[in-house]
């Protein structure tokens, strides 16, 4: 078989792999890459032709994970990182604290309120709902419409000043 793409593993540079991973966007929130989201956890080079990418799913039922896996393989294959292994790692469980600062800014600019910084105490059943600031007018005067939104990772809020409804990337 003719090798169409020269192997990039001869002068392996992990930074190059991370740059490629940054091009892979979440299909539901196309401004965020899997690096911004903290889904891409680790790049491991095992020598020879073996490159491994470790990913952690956001939610157990996230339907995008299979697609992201395929996109990672495709993107890397095209750049000469032939047949990478993509491994799913469940532990430690993904948390919104892994979202990068750039990711949070991009999310807000896109109109989705970024998650609260520290995961709330899960032992409290009805913890006081924190005020989420409106990504449009920045007012903290908002209320929750529904804890479940258009995707598993979002809740639905409404700004009581500018009256716009907005998504909140909920913290887990």
């Amino acid at each position, binding site marked *: 078989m003719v090798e169409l793409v020269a192997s990039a593993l001869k002068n392996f540079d992990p930074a190059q792999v991370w740059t490629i991973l940054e091009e892979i966007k979440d299909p539901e929130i196309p401004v965020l890459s899997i690096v911004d989201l903290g889904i891409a956890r680790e790049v491991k080079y095992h020598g020879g032709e073996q490159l491994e990418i470790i990913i952690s*799913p956001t*939610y*157990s*039922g*996230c*339907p995008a994970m299979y697609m992201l896996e395929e996109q990672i393989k495709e993107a890397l294959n095209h750049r000469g990182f032939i047949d990478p292994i993509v491994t799913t790692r*469940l*532990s*430690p*469980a*993904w948390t919104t604290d892994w979202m990068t600062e750039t990711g949070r800014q991009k999310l807000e600019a896109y109109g989705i309120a970024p998650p609260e910084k520290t995961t709330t105490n*899960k032992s409290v*059943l*009805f913890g006081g709902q924190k005020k989420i600031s409106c990504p449009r007018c920045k007012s903290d005067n908002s209320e929750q*419409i*529904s*804890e*479940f*939104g*258009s*995707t*598993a990772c979002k809740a*639905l809020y409404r700004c009581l000043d500018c009256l716009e409804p907005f998504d909140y990337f909920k913290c*887990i």
Partner: protein
Amino acid sequence: MADLSKKDALVQYAAQIGDNGLIIGHRMSEWCFRAPTIEMEMALMNSALDLIGQARELYSYAATAQGEGKTEDDFAYLRDEQDFRNALLTEVPNGDWGDTIVRLFLMSVYNKLFFSALADSKDAELAAIGAKSLKEVTYHLRFSSEWMIRLGDGTSESHNRVQKSVDNLWVYTGELFTMTDAENLLLKDGISVDVAALKADWNQNIAQVFEQATLTVPADGWAQLGGKADGVHTEHFGYIIADMQYMQRRYPGCEW
């Protein structure tokens, strides 16, 4: 059953936890396009997705532990009724919105306690699934608790109906705290959860929300068993797998 191997016990155990998630998740998905408001529907669908996602992780692990080259799909689509070991509570029909909420609430209180304990399992994969699932079921518990209070402490109509749902479903709750042979065997190695020991906390958590909801906790009486230990299901179960497995049975191996 002295001849149950540890490997078989682990496969049974992972699959059985997965069965609870798949079957209740499937039931909840039946509300798609039918819930009273779009927010209620999205909440149920999101939660169903979590539960089915958890089932996928557990089935995949069961398939790996089994080592016969099977996948999660074999567990979901190609097993027969008797092979499913879900608790009967997860399979009874949805009924009205109140019945659905009561079932989700009873199950979510259990799931929260169960996955907290599973997160400490000596089996690394089960512990990882436990820790991940715990985050998700916490949302289910909050959602269903709020609805329990809204319905119980709502109008006399909603109060009476949701109390009736509780009274009807209570007979299925005892099964959640029974131990199978596989669970007993794995408990010795710190792999499985001692579900019998969760009962006191479960009762307490239920009582807390019921108090706010002005609902009465039924007395524990005779418990309906069958699904978890023996794969003996209610008459409703066959319809679930007829619907869920139709494509794989009619077109074996079909893919999207």
